[in-house]
């Protein structure tokens, strides 16, 4: 292992990007006018990288100076980030023209007329346009997306370009990466449900491409297909939902629909039943995209992709698309502002699905040994939290509990932010671990690269890494804390809000809500367990494999993002909570306001409502105390003699060894554990059903087409040939027969003539 290398000079070509905003401002652009650049620059860079990469593949300059396109991709993302920040600041502190919700249309995509039910053509043509829609939620997710895309691209230059397996293939990675970013930015900025869906699908494509980046691996190709198809199922329902929405409102533009969701295009009141179906179908799409029960099976497999992909797509950004979509449903149900009453069931269904998924994913995460799989299930579980929160918010909105609804909504969105930051970082950190372990392994076994028995992702090969990888361990610690909901750290503020509001709904208004409420409360504790378990297994205890001793944190480009995100996770959440982001996100107030330190703390820990207070403390107890302690009892332990971790994490390592040790061999051999290992048999069941229905039916169809439909044609053909031979046999060659036939014909003519007349 060489020295830690810095390659910052490579970034010099990107420096002019810093001047972008000033130049645009000088040119008289508004920030919102520049919004399209957020999408188009990555879109243009995508083919650029692909084509240049294909042409200059294996070229040394391209490889070393341009990182096989990494620098270009980073530049594109830097532009997007810059402009996103510009928009953000403009929105927060800019001129008055930038109101609460701003929209701008770029061009008209398709225009058409409509035949109304009274057989007249609608007077004005309807337009499906392309434009930008900006409000608080957009801004928050846009920031998350641009920021994480940028950081993870940065990270990739270290992670991807140093792995020999990726050599000469990285241009494909970066191209797909920027294309994905384009999809994400586009989806967030889109000003209509249709364009939301379009970019949503683009992301699906990129997810497919990136999961299948190691296309030669059977498992990767399979996982890519599975991911695409599973989300596709949801997408189809989503599409039908869009059709219904279109039918109701005559447009899919946010501006038109959100203006007054209670009246349809005809001016009549919207039928809540129809709208319910539309929104439910949209939610099915969200379920697919965000890997919720029962369309969750693709996400764990998706970890076959390179780790930056897992970090970006399957943790931080794309999976949030479903949440974003559900968040966009608020105006429909907000009966305070022209919402449609009678949609309570929607919120309940969403909350239920969320609760079930949260619990199930957490359960499965208990037994995972692959570090990325743990994170994947954790992602699923945390997303489910947000769904629950959104479901509760929708329910509150629809039952006219405006304030509670806003808190639930804001908390959910805030959790999205926290989770994205933390999970992105966790994945990067895990990537760092995997990368270094892998390197170390290759370093030891230089002669034998093809040792496939060693899995660098398996936590049973790790342990004690805290001493070897201080930055990574720190980052992972803060990330896990945020996910667990350790008080004061990022995720705590949001998660607590979600749980509290769910309980509030359950206790005070809607008994059914008790199911998700209990489930997510239990999940909070389970989260504490499995996140701690992961950390302890990886970083604490004695090294379980010789490889660990050779691990160094030596790869460039990896540390910076980890550090930045660690800071954001550790302090950012708290800071934003202080600014009362929860209310900001739910559009309660125009701008962020400092709430005051004490007020915030009091509000969080000692709410006036007794029930809320009880729930809050139970959550803290479960997630912060019980879960981690159990994990520490099983997996914790001191580091190997002679090794030492930095101060920031050594307390945790040593703490983990203080709770004694518990042997769980019996439990891990139980049937339940086996079921969990097999992911509760969902994948098997799906596989079985498909192999028993879809494939035989397809073969049957092909058979039917070949032998019946085409068979009829072939029958006609062969029958014609055989009858032709028969007909030809009548011509015997004997003139007597010919005369006889003629005579017979003659007589039959007469019979015909006289018989008829």
């Amino acid at each position: 292992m060489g020295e830690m290398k810095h390659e910052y000079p490579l970034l010099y070509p990107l420096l002019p990007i810093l001047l972008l905003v000033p130049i645009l401002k000088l040119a008289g652009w508004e920030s919102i006018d520049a919004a399209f650049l957020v999408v188009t620059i990555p879109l243009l860079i995508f083919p650029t990288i692909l084509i240049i990469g294909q042409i200059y593949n294996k070229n040394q300059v391209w490889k070393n100076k341009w990182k096989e396109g990494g620098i270009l991709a980073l530049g594109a993302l830097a532009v997007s980030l810059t402009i996103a920040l510009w928009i953000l600041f403009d929105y927060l502190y800019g001129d008055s023209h930038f109101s609460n919700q701003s929209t701008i249309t770029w061009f008209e995509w398709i225009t058409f007329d409509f035949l109304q039910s009274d057989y007249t053509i609608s007077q004005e043509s309807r337009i499906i346009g392309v434009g930008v829609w900006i409000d608080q939620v957009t801004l928050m997710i846009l920031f998350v997306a641009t920021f994480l895309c940028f950081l993870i691209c940065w990270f990739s230059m270290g992670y991807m370009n140093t792995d020999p397996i990726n050599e000469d293939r990285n241009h494909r990675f970066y191209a797909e990466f920027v294309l994905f970013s384009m999809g994400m930015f586009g989806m967030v900025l889109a000003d209509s449900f249709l364009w939301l869906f379009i970019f949503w699908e683009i992301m699906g494509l990129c997810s497919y491409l990136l999961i299948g980046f190691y296309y030669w691996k059977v498992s990767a190709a399979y996982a890519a297909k599975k991911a695409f198809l599973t989300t596709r199922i949801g997408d189809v329902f989503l599409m039908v939902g869009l059709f219904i929405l279109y039918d109701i409102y005559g447009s899919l533009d946010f501006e038109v629909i959100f203006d007054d969701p209670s009246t349809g295009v005809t001016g009549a009141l919207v039928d809540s039943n129809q709208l319910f179906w539309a929104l439910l179908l949209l939610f099915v799409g969200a379920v697919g995209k965000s890997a919720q029960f029962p369309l969750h099976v693709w996400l764990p497999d998706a970890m076959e992709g390179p780790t930056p992909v897992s970090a970006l797509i399957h943790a931080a950004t794309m999976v949030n698309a479903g949440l974003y979509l559900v968040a966009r449903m608020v105006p429909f149900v907000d009966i305070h502002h022209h919402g449609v009453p009678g949609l309570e069931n929607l919120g309940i269904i969403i909350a239920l699905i969320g609760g079930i998924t949260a619990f199930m994913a957490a359960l499965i995460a208990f037994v995972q040994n692959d570090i990325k799989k743990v994170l994947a299930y954790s992602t699923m579980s945390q997303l489910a939290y947000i769904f629950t929160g959104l479901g509760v918010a929708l329910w509150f909105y629809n039952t006219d509990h405006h304030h509670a609804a806003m808190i639930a909504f804001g908390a959910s969105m805030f959790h999205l932010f926290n989770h994205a930051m933390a999970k992105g970082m966790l994945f990067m950190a895990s990537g760092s671990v995997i990368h270094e372990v892998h390197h170390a392994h290759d370093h030891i076994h230089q002669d034998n690269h093809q040792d496939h028995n060693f899995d660098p992702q398996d936590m049973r090969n790790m342990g004690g890494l805290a001493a070897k990888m201080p930055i990574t361990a720190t980052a992972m610690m803060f990330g896990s804390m945020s996910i667990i909901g350790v008080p004061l750290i990022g995720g705590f503020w949001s998660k607590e809000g979600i749980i509290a509001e769910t309980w509030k709904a359950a206790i005070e208004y809607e008994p059914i809500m008790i199911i998700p409420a209990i489930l997510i409360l239990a999940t909070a504790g389970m989260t504490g367990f499995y996140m701690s378990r992961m950390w302890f297994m990886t970083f604490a205890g004695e090294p379980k494999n010789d490889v660990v001793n050779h691990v160094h944190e030596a790869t460039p480009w990896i540390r910076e993002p980890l550090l930045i995100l660690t800071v954001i996770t550790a302090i950012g959440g708290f800071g934003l909570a202080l600014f009362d982001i929860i209310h900001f996100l739910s559009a309660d107030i125009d701008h962020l306001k400092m709430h005051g330190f004490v007020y915030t703390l009091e509000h969080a820990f000692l709410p006036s409502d007794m029930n809320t207070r009880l729930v809050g403390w139970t959550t803290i107890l479960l997630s912060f105390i019980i879960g981690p302690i159990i994990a520490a009892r099983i997996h914790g332990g001191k580091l190997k003699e002679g090794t030492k971790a930095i101060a920031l994490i050594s307390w945790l390592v040593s703490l983990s060894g203080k709770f004694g040790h518990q042997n769980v061999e019996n439990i891990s051999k139980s049937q339940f554990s086996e079921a969990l290992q097999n992911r509760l048999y969902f994948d098997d069941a799906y596989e079985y059903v498909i192999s028993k229905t879809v494939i035989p039916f397809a073969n049957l169809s092909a058979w039917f087409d070949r032998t019946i439909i085409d068979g009829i044609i072939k029958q006609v053909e062969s029958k014609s040939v055989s009858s032709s031979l028969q007909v030809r046999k009548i011509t015997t060659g004997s003139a007597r027969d010919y005369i006889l036939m003629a005579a017979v014909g003659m007589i039959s003519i007469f019979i015909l003539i006289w018989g008829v007349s």
Partner: protein
Amino acid sequence: MNSLSDISLELLIPESIMIIGILTMILIPNLGDAKIRIPLTNTSVPVFIGGTRFTQVNNPFIPSIVAIITFTLSFFMSLIMLQGAKNGEIGQIMEVNQFTTLFSLIFTSALLMTSIATFYRMPPKQNPEIPQDKDTESSASAKIRILMNNRRQVDFYILLLMVGLGMCLMSKSTHLFLLFVCLELASLSSYVLVGFYKESDIGGEAGTKYFIVGSVASAIGIYGMSLLYLWNGNLQIDSLTSSWSTMENLDPFAGIGVGLMLVAFGFKVGAAPFHLATPDAYSGASSPIAGLLATASKAMGFVAIMKILLIITSPEEGVEAYWFIAIALISVITMTWGNFAALTSVNPKRMLAYSSVAHAGYMLAAIAAIGSGLGDYNSNVLIITALIFHLTILVLFKFGAFLVLTLLENEGLTHNMDGLKGLTRRDPVIAISMFIFMLSLAGIPPLSGFLSKLLMINGIVNVSAGTGSVSSATVLTWMTSVNVVFWLALSIVINSAISLFYYLRVGLLMFFEEPVVEGPLAKSIYLRITIIACAIFTLLLGIGPLSESLLEIANEAAQSLL
């Protein structure tokens, strides 16, 4: 009333040319230095007949050249007559009008093509030697064979001219008996021509069968005609027509008579079930003769059928002709039989024969549509126009196909499809021409075969589509209410679809298979020109101004027929 001066010979110029041609052909090869001594004197006067022939007339190509010149002349004379619309009656037994002139044109053009084709088919030897005593037996017989071969030239072309004469006169006759006599003249000559295929041992058999069956058919026809005579006492077509239209109930003599005559003409056109000898005859005859049978001979049969069915027994408007059902059924059987039999034929000539049978079926269907009595004068004219048009262009592509086979026949490869294999590689121009002929036979646009088929179907649709109940609201009620004629159109199109199979198979063989014999075909320059001209006209007559003018001519002809 009848005086010789009434007979305006100018109306019979084509026929006169043919007669002169026959005489010339008899005379020229016999010109020699023979002298006759004037009795009682010693002076010998040259009579130029017999003796040692002049070397100039000794050329064995002379008969074919004479035939070609004769047919060319009468072709152009007919054309001029057609242009000048020279019409008139000759005595009371013949009439010249646009119809007859057009058919003269059809006959002469077909015969012209036959002569051109046979010019290369039976090449005589130049300067044959006379066998000497010192020759061995074999060399002597070889020399004799050559001499005989050369001799046959004259026989062949005389018969050809006879066929032309018979056909041309037949189309002009307005007297049933004359019609029959001329028909016999043409038929008997054509029987011999079929048997003339001496290169192969099947010529005799083909001639015999064709002759026997044909003779039976003519005998039946003559008997039917005699019944008509018994019924009417006069065989003038005008007289028969007026008697028929005044006849209250169907007289058995008349009915049976017409029916029996249909048998004779049905044999000529190759209608099922009287067609059985046609494939044998076509495959046994040499290709040019088979082409002649398929075009001119068939046209002759249709002229006769039209005269009988559409003039004598023409249905009144709104009344179904008594033969309608019979002809309709025959037409359907004919086209189906022909197509199905052709489907698997391995002999190209047989295949073309069956296809010719199928085409007869289509034309009979058109005649049946007139017989339904549904159409008015205009729509009947339209159908006849279609028929005439079809018969005219048939000379182009049907004969064209036989001409291509003629080219191949020199290699002895026309008994099965092998000869056509790989033709594109051997001779692309000929192969493409053949492909065009096949497509035209199948009725693929924009070739002329399509236009004629379209016109026939249109004629049928024209008379029948209006018959369905106007008030019918569903497809089924309409389908049950429409006249049966409409379904003839459907049977035609379905049959065309079936026929496509074997026409395309020819293309398949030509484009796809390896040739059996390598190397280009025989040069035969005039034959090639004829084939290419046929192909070009097949294209040009399909669409555009040329087809327009031909249609107008056919339309005038049809009007003059009715």
